[in-house]
């Protein structure tokens, strides 16, 4: 196998959306058997570039060369034909179908008029053994874990004969252990001669996995580097365009009175199962309690319960001793709870409202914004302008629709609004999801600042780095229950990972 043979060459790819240049004359070379990381912040143009390669977008300028031949990739089917496969961030699987059925979908082996399931199952087994991807072809997608589903996606590309596999943010939804397994799988694929491109913004993964890294910033290639010649700090700097501090300045402080106390909380989930199954914990003034766990273990429900957005079926929620169990979101908010919601598009903002209108979303009913049932738009605009200045929300002004702001500025607007309420308890769920490094830095700084000012903070996050950077205590949640707390001083990902996958033994190790 010739490791120096280039399988993909992108030459001067330019892709515009209206007047916005998403990719600006990008050059990229992928060699056979190589793991090539495409590193950049959100909106840097990584996904656009890969969608061009996969035939989902047509570039305005530039050429795509596959195996030394110039090709026009006009559609995903053409890309598959050329041996390119893509594992999307959001899996495209049919839930009630079996693994094998999903894999053969669109390219079914036939026996007369019927689908040859026996052949399909055997074929899937054969590929999965060859690349050491453990899956049972006959189970249904809805019954397997997220990590397994991802393996099915990988198998799908291999079944279709992919020689080049593109991974779009593959670790975003995985647990610590699953990430390790995925890294192993990707290494195997490369060893078998497949060429891999990984889109990511996580520096650790790049360092531990890739051979080569190409950094993209604002649609341009900043540099392509051999992984042996670089380090995390240099990559971060290239990615953001300036020096970045990873650590948040957080000094030790003694927590004060108990602000939030949750006793034996129970909440119903989707299918009659308990989504929150008897949780008891406290958050004190001036401390950050981090809740770790894999997405979908009841974290969202827990927060909806505390904030009054969903019915609590048992137990109690108290704020400063005052009972808030099953109170309305308005009552909870007025009692002194600020909430930076998990989904800023769905809950945090009315996207088609102006920035100004969004700023009073939780306080429009106050006398401050008009009396007699009318809204005082002047007071609203003045108030919003003040917050926008104070929290540095950038965009085209307070009359612009919230939709028009970048993700980071949308989040800043929400933080501005929630912090301004001067709450006793601040709840932050995934506060930096989808934000770039600069914005993450800012959000972290604000949260620690609120803690230093003596607010109680409940932080739910799936990012271990974030939990360690911000929390004073970390509790792990699994299937609606607390599995225990871990030490924040001495980081132990192994133990945390075991707790996150429901292994009580993690505590003893």
């Amino acid at each position: 196998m010739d490791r120096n043979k280039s399988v993909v060459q992108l030459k001067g790819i330019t892709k515009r959306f209206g007047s916005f240049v998403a990719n600006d004359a990008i050059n990229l070379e992928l060699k056979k058997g190589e793991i090539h990381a495409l590193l950049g912040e959100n909106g840097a143009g990584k996904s656009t570039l890969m969608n061009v390669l996969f035939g989902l977008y047509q570039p305005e300028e530039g050429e795509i060369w596959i195996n030394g031949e110039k090709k026009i990739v006009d559609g995903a089917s053409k890309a598959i034909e050329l041996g390119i496969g893509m594992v999307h961030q959001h899996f495209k699987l049919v839930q009630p179908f079996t693994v094998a059925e999903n894999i053969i979908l669109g390219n079914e082996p036939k026996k007369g008029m019927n689908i040859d399931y026996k052949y399909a199952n055997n074929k899937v087994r054969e590929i999965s053994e060859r690349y050491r991807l453990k899956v049972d072809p006959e189970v249904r997608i809805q019954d397997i874990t997220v990590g397994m589903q991802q393996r099915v996606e990988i198998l799908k590309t291999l079944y279709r004969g992919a020689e080049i596999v593109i991974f779009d943010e593959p670790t975003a939804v995985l647990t610590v252990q699953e990430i390790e397994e995925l890294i192993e799988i990707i290494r195997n694929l490369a060893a078998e001669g497949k060429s891999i491109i990984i889109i990511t913004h996580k520096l650790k993964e790049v360092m531990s996995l890739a051979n080569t890294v190409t950094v993209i910033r604002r649609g341009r290639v900043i540099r392509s580097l051999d992984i042996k010649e670089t380090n995390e700090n240099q990559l971060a700097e290239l990615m953001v365009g300036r020096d970045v501090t990873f650590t948040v300045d957080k000094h030790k402080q003694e927590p004060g009175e108990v602000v939030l106390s949750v006793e034996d909380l129970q909440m119903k989930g989707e299918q009659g199962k308990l989504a929150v199954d008897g949780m008891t914990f406290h958050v004190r003034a001036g401390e950050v309690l981090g809740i770790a766990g894999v997405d979908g273990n009841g974290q969202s429900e827990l927060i909806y319960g505390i904030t009054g957005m969903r019915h609590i079926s048992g137990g109690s929620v108290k704020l400063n001793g005052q009972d808030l169990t099953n109170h309305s979101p308005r009552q909870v908010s007025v009692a002194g709870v600020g909430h930076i919601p998990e989904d800023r598009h769905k809950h945090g903002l009315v996207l088609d409202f102006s920035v100004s209108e969004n700023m009073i979303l939780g306080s429009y009913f106050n006398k401050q914004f008009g009396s007699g049932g009318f809204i005082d738009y002047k007071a609203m605009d003045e108030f919003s302008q003040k917050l926008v200045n104070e929290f540095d929300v950038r965009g085209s002004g307070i009359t612009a629709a919230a939709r028009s702001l970048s993700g980071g500025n949308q989040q800043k607007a929400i933080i501005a609004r929630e912090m301004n309420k001067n709450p006793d308890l601040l709840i932050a769920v995934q506060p930096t999801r989808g934000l770039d490094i600069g914005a993450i830095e800012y959000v972290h700084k604000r949260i620690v600042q609120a803690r230093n000012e003596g607010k109680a903070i409940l932080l739910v996050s799936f990012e271990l780095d974030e939990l360690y950077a911000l929390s004073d205590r970390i509790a792990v949640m699994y299937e609606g229950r607390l599995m225990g707390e871990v030490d924040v001083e001495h980081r132990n990902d192994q133990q945390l990972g075991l707790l996150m996958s429901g292994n009580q033994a993690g505590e003893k190790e």
Partner: protein
Amino acid sequence: MGKIIKTFNSSSLLVPFVSILLGLLTGAVFMLAGGYNPIAAYGSLINRIFSSPYNMGETIRAITPLIFTGIAVAFAFRTGLFNIGVEGQFMMGMTGATLVGVLADLPWFIHAPLAVITGAVFGGVWAAIAGYLKAARGVNEVISAIMLNWIALFLSNFLIVRFVVVEGQQKSKPIRESAMVKMDWLVQALDSARMHWGTVVALVCVVIFYLILWRTKLGYELRAVGLSPEAAHYAGMNVKRTMVKSMFISGLFAGLGGVFEMLGVFGYQTVMAATWGYGFDGIAVALLGGNTPVGVFLGAVLFGGLNYGSAGMSFGADVPPEVVRIVIGAIIFFVASHGIVKWMLKPFLMKRANNRKEAA
């Protein structure tokens, strides 16, 4: 559903304008195919509207109910609800006004307002039923409102026959003069065209429509719920109660439309075999007007004018007036499928953009 609502709430001026032109063209094509002269037909349509003071007055009368039903539909849309039940609410408004107008015997300054308010509340409550069913039981408001339309039709007929019918006839006794709201001086001035105060109330309602939605805290809630119920819920708004409120107000507007047809125009109510269709036309008006106050007003003027003028087409050009329904249908089609309109406009817009670029 979300997509439909988005289509209705879009506020570009270009699409409705082009849609109207395309609608008129479509009508012309059909007329040509049938061997008629479209220019003569449209000419006599316009001629009919402006030919005499009487016809101009009657055109305004035809426009008035469409303003009411148009803002009724548009108001609900702004809260993310498709009030297809305006038809039934309109009818309940008629019935409420007729019952009070016939049965009560009061001085005019109490009688007329009481009849108006009763009719409006009849319409509001009728709409609130659909709103409540949606909020409390999750029943799709489109389904329940369509069924409520039928119930309104037969309930109205029952109430008329049971309480105020003229023996042996299929209509109510005349509404007392003290409840009527005709503008007598204008009726005389316009050769007895049926002018009434409802037109003024309709214009006031257009302003109220704007004030409620964009100047009050209630309107802020209504729009927030319409644009994002989840975010409204997060912000501590009572989404369900807001839906009921929105439907109630929408129904008030619809009910008023029916009220003035009775108190301003006819003066008695007949037992009906089918509904009048003003409510359904209101959906078209709201769609064409992009759910904006001015847009709805202009949409009502257009459709009211087309409807009234269509009689002139058979008169002046021997074209069946039903052709106007084709025109209206085509306009609605083009507004709703605005993708097609934009696609057709693309070459022109590109050219303009290029010209601008060259000029710069």
